[in-house]
């Protein structure tokens, strides 16, 4: 039974009102499509840090990190360490992101047109939107499930809860675009951070570190601390996580949107460098909550993603802490949803619709189209989020759907920036193989007849195969086509 009181409800209401006010109040600064999609490229370092961290941490991330902690102990946080190393390296060296920002594009496919032609731009847009929307498809349901468990809401209100949250986010994103996203991200980062810090400190006060460590030891042995000896993690998983994280830092449109909104490449790199350690935090802190759930509830919770919210609901927090926690998680989810809706919408407008813009559109017409697309994405999320049943660990679903585009787009980006021989044949091959392998894996896993075979192959091996396949296709395709291209870096 949750200990949700009217004080908790008041804290959530105040946060919700503040977020809506902040999101709607910047409408008057939107004059052009560039203001709407990349905030006029006026974002500075610390706003970028808040926005990037808030965007990349939602309820779905929190639940997946906690699930990894619950199922694998501390070793489950290795994916966060991979993300940290990848982002730190890219931020320090400017690998790919410097030429990307200096090219002045608003989306990655726009850059590809300069190297590989308009057809590759369009197909890149298709793959990005497909992977991005499938990835985002589970956000609403997992967010709704978290709120239902923690707030002890009747399950029949799950859909209504999800709809209200999505409509609120949709309204301020449609009105203010990236500007609303940045301003609300700032507020949401602060609320999210305070909530997570308070809950983590109180958890560690209630359950001593020795208890957490001995719980992991008794359930998972040395593998609970060391991912390399964990039978469910191991080298294959870690190699896949390194590839996925490096590719995500380079090409995940919601991450790259911060780089493209930055004042210049140097500012974008600073945002990356200073946000990098957050990726360890976003796995370790919810991971601690997951281990605390294991210590208090035992290993039998099904589905495992519900262990952490059940632990939070059953803990007797001081007055107001549940409200602060729910406000923090709402903040995390709203910032993620708004940014994802805007950035996938930006690819649809900027790249998929590019062939239909024979003449230059007026700014009001461009803004109207962008706003309509965001509304339609919201509608899609509502429908998809309601019917898609999650078959596997949340994190596995996120990485496999992400790989649909990460494998091919990262290959194209590296080649576009640093390999003069790369051309449209190689790009087409990389897109096809990079998307086909993870998509086929998801389909085979969903069909009962082929499910066993898919599970024997494993999501990680399928993911690594997608990266290798995309790379090989790029090299072979580029060498098969006569002539060569010019590098942009």
């Amino acid at each position, binding site marked *: 039974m949750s200990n949700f009181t009217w004080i908790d409800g008041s804290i959530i209401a105040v946060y919700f009102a503040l977020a809506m006010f902040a999101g709607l109040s910047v409408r008057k600064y939107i004059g052009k499509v560039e203001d709407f999609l990349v905030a006029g490229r006026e974002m500075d370092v*610390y706003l*970028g*840090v*808040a926005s990037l961290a808030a965007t990349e941490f939602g309820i779905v991330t929190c639940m997946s990190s906690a699930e990894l902690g619950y199922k694998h102990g501390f070793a489950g946080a290795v994916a966060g360490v991979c993300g940290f190393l990848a982002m730190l390296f890219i931020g320090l060296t400017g690998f790919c992101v410097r030429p990307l920002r200096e090219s002045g594009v608003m989306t990655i496919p726009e850059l590809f047109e300069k190297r590989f032609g308009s057809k590759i731009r369009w197909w890149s847009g298709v793959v990005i939107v497909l992977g991005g929307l499938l990835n985002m498809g589970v956000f609403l349901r997992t967010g709704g499930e978290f709120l239902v468990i923690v707030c002890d809401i009747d399950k029949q209100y799950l859909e209504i809860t999800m709809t209200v949250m999505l409509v609120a986010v949709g309204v301020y994103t449609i009105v203010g675009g990236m500007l609303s996203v*940045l301003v609300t991200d700032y507020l949401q980062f602060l609320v999210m951070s305070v909530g997570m810090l308070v809950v983590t400190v109180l958890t560690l006060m209630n359950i001593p570190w020795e208890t957490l*460590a001995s719980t992991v030891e008794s359930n998972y042995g*040395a593998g609970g*601390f060391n991912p390399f000896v964990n039978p469910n993690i191991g080298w294959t998983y870690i190699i896949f996580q390194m590839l996925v994280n490096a590719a995500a830092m380079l090409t995940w449109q919601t991450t790259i949107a911060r780089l493209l909104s930055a004042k210049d490449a140097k500012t974008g790199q600073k945002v990356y460098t*200073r946000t990098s350690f957050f990726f360890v935090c976003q796995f370790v802190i919810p991971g601690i909550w997951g281990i605390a759930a294991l210590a208090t509830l035992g290993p039998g919770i099904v589905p495992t993603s519900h262990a952490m919210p059940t632990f939070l609901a059953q803990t007797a927090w001081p007055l107001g802490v549940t409200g602060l926690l729910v406000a923090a998680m709402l903040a995390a989810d709203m910032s993620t949803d708004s940014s994802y809706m805007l950035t996938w919408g930006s690819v649809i407008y900027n790249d998929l619709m590019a062939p239909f813009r024979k003449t230059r559109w007026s700014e009001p017409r461009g803004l109207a189209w962008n706003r309509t697309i965001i509304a339609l994405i919201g509608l899609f999320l509502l429908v998809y989020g309601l019917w898609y049943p999650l078959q596997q660990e949340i994190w596995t679903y996120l990485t496999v759907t992400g790989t649909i585009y990460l494998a091919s787009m990262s290959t194209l980006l590296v080649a576009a920036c640093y390999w003069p021989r790369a051309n449209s044949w190689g790009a087409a091959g990389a897109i096809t193989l990079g998307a086909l392998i993870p998509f086929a894996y998801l389909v085979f896993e969903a069909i009962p007849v082929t499910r066993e075979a898919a599970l024997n192959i494993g999501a990680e091996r399928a993911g690594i195969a997608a990266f290798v396949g995309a790379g090989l296709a790029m090299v072979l395709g580029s060498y098969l086509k006569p002539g060569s291209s010019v590098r942009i870096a």
Partner: protein
Amino acid sequence: MIDGSTFWWYVTAACLAWFSTVTIYVAIRGGLDIKHMLRRLKALKQQNRDE
């Protein structure tokens, strides 16, 4: 050689320290960033109108 529990204790402590420090820093500097960004966008919008 530190054991697994001690290693993850240090990582957790680093995460809490990072979060506390960055939250305070971002609260101040991020707020100023927003102020400057909106001021510049307002000026640019006015400039476009004048042209």
